[in-house]
């Protein structure tokens, strides 16, 4: 705003940006919610549904997503091939082991608005099971989207000083009994 030329300002406003999102230990629903906002372009003040102002989103580590509750066992993904007897149902575990990007892809697809632009927006979504990204995509990345869920620390990730600084909440009291 301060000293940009009009052309540079115009370009910065309307250019298509590339965002990175790390899905490690994140629930796929919240990942999808953050992605869909960027894919539609709702994070921009110039948003309009018809003006195709969505950005690219690259999601890495989709193999390491974390479901809350028992959804790995309980959530079922159904599809029908169109042929008789072609109703297929797979649990989230089976689907994830077969294709580690499928769960996030389906979550984003189902969260996008159900119009003709959904397919274009899905083309702007790039999913990678690990953190290995092709070089040309890596060069395009502009900014990282913050992770929706705060990942808790494991017990072995605490330093011994922190563990010692935490007070003992209870102390065992042994009773010395005569004759034992």
């Amino acid at each position, binding site marked *: 705003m301060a000293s940009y030329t009009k052309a540079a300002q115009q370009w910065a406003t309307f250019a298509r940006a590339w965002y990175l999102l790390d899905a490690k230990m994140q629930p796929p629903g919240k990942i999808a919610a953050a992605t869909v906002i960027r894919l539609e372009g709702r994070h921009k003040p110039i948003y309009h549904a018809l003006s195709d102002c969505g950005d690219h989103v690259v999601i890495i580590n989709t193999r390491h997503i974390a479901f809350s509750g028992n959804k790995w066992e309980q959530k079922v993904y159904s599809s029908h091939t169109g042929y008789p007897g072609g109703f297929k149902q797979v649990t989230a575990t089976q689907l994830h082991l077969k294709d580690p990007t499928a769960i996030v892809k389906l979550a984003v697809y189902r969260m996008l608005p159900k119009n003709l632009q959904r397919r274009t927006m899905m083309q702007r979504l790039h999913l990678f099971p690990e953190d290995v990204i092709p070089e040309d995509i890596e060069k395009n990345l502009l900014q990282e989207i913050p992770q929706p869920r705060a990942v808790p620390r494991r017990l072995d990730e605490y330093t011994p000083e922190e563990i010692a600084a935490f007070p003992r909440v209870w102390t065992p009291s042994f009773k*010395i009994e005569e004759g034992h």
Partner: protein
Amino acid sequence: MAAPSLLRGGLRRLFAGLWGRGWASPPARALREGESGTGGTIEGKIIEDAAAPTPPNPSGQCPICRWNLKHKYDYVDVLLLSQFIRSDGGMLPRRTTGLCLEEHKKIAVCVQMAHRAGLLPNHRPRLPEGHTPKKPKLNRYLTRWSVRSAKPIWKRGPKWCKVPMPVGHPLLKDNVKYTHKFLNFNH
């Protein structure tokens, strides 16, 4: 109660080389070291423990009330939960820890959720042979039911009466919330 001469809260006694005849198994909290000093002599030292800090509310009945943690802990607070578990991951009995019944249940539930989330990796049950336990391939958190017992919901139902997928545990519904979001136990 075969634990004579083991005083806590001020004194601790180091035993060296005394196991075998007196006890079937050594007390879990005692320290064992090799023989110090010259070979053949057994030394016992009395080590003064650091005094435990006074809790903010000494008139409480259970440790949670004494430290004003009544509705303030979750499955994430591993430093607190690890004080109530054994080295193989099981809960310590209530008569040892001094917890009241509802807090003991809440802590048990939080410990279960922490185990399933993989936050307590070193508190695993001891396996006798050299059988390496397989690493869980899937990350999870706030799991209410055990992994083996949960069955797939093949038919979830129409939008107005879907079968819910439970998350978290209703025992923790009174926990302090710092956001105005509604705490949903069914997704």
